[in-house]
């Protein structure tokens, strides 16, 4: 059973965003890392790049396939998780601890369009 954390917001493409003040921490969910298998590369944007809600901002690559990353929210990238450059497998070890980017939210009302933990858990159950 994939782990889901209370208090985060979730997308249908299996990204999460954790909000602290006006900063959103974005990564892929435990369900996503499990479905992908061994992660071997994370293609990340640069700091100061703008990301758009629902738009692709990079990719997570498993041994076999590339999977686009879609941003849950719009905003400016303020930090990227450089640890993933050398150790992309951290995403498999703990997808929630090993986030991918942090974004300064430009429109916090976009969070209303995302799923909460309960809705996301149901969404995952219906995927099988």
């Amino acid at each position, binding site marked *: 059973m994939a782990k889901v954390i209370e208090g985060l917001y979730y997308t249908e493409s299996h990204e999460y965003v954790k909000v602290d003040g006006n900063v959103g921490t974005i990564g892929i969910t435990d369900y996503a890392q499990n479905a992908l298998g061994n992660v071997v*590369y994370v293609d990340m944007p640069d700091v100061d790049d703008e990301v758009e809600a629902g738009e692709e901002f990079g990719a997570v690559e498993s*041994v076999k396939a590339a999977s686009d990353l879609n941003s849950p929210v719009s905003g400016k990238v303020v930090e990227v998780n450089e640890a993933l450059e050398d150790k992309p497998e951290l995403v498999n070890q703990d997808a929630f601890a090993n986030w991918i980017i942090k974004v300064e939210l430009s429109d916090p009302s976009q969070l209303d369009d995302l799923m909460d933990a309960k809705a996301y858990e149901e969404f995952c159950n219906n995927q099988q």
Partner: protein
Amino acid sequence: MNKRTCLYDKHVALGALIQPFGGFDMPIQYTNIIDEHKAVREHVGVFDVSHMGEIIISGHDAPRFVNHIFTNDVTKMKPGDVMYGMMCYEDGGTVDDTCVDMLEPNRYFMTVNAANVDKDSEWVHKQAEKFDVVVCYKSDWWNQLAIQGPEAEKTVTEVLHLPVSDLKFYQCKEVLRFDDSVIVSRTGYTGEDGFEVYGDKEYIRDAWDRLMRAGVKPCGLGCRDTLRFEVGLPLYGDELSKDISPIMAGLGHFVDFDKPEFIGREALLKQKTEGVAKRLRGIQLDDHAVPRHGYKVLRDGKEVGEVTTGYRLISADKSCAVALVDSSLKLGDRVEIQIRKKTFPGTIVKKRFVDTHYKKD
């Protein structure tokens, strides 16, 4: 509805991820590709490759017939030898790549790719009309396990009790179990020492169970592809096709032009002497981005080819591709691969990215 091998129920019980491949529902991984890949490089692993096709060719004209449809020269074999090569069309395009086991004088056992079995069987039968041979296509009867890795000889000897220690790389033998044939060859598709064991459903199911009880790691088609790629082995559909000849694929050493006649000889000889527009090359990227089938290869911003297979390697810390590129490109030339919105620089290198460990002596 896809076909299933005789071990399908056992793969499901082991929790394998099952996906379609070559018309079969096949196990892609049991745990994960990296663990299974490393088991084969470092110890031993077993693959269910029963989806592969088998064609037996026998009869008075068998050597002459096999030589007619095959690029390599089977008259150079003796019973118990295995030879790799291709079947080609008249224009030099590849029908399939195949291993031919010479079981006896006038009896050959060909293993062909699962995705090609219908096409190959039709092709071989059609060519056989003018020869005194019997072509027997019994892929449903034959099942196959590949036991691969440095501990493969120990495993096959102690767990399956097959007498294989006298086999060298690319040798085979047929052993009888009750009235049925079991064929074992010292071959594989991983770059490691290993064996391929062919038998009927009962034999293969029993052999699989014994290997599982002995703790041999079950390995899926996911790592079969990463293993073969690292050591530069081609996959039909990626590195060989009706549009990619053995010469374009850099497999000319499996095309024996000393033979006066075989299908495709004229076209292939022309390619060899006059050159080809595109050929397969290895590319090693400077970075760890992952090149994939179909990605564009550029030189000075101009498109020069396309990736056929690419991975971030598991056995070495680098990202590599095999690509069909302009044949003017030479080893050491710098190119770029377009990966999504970015281009990543790399160098043309040999297609074997990792050393092989075959048992040749």
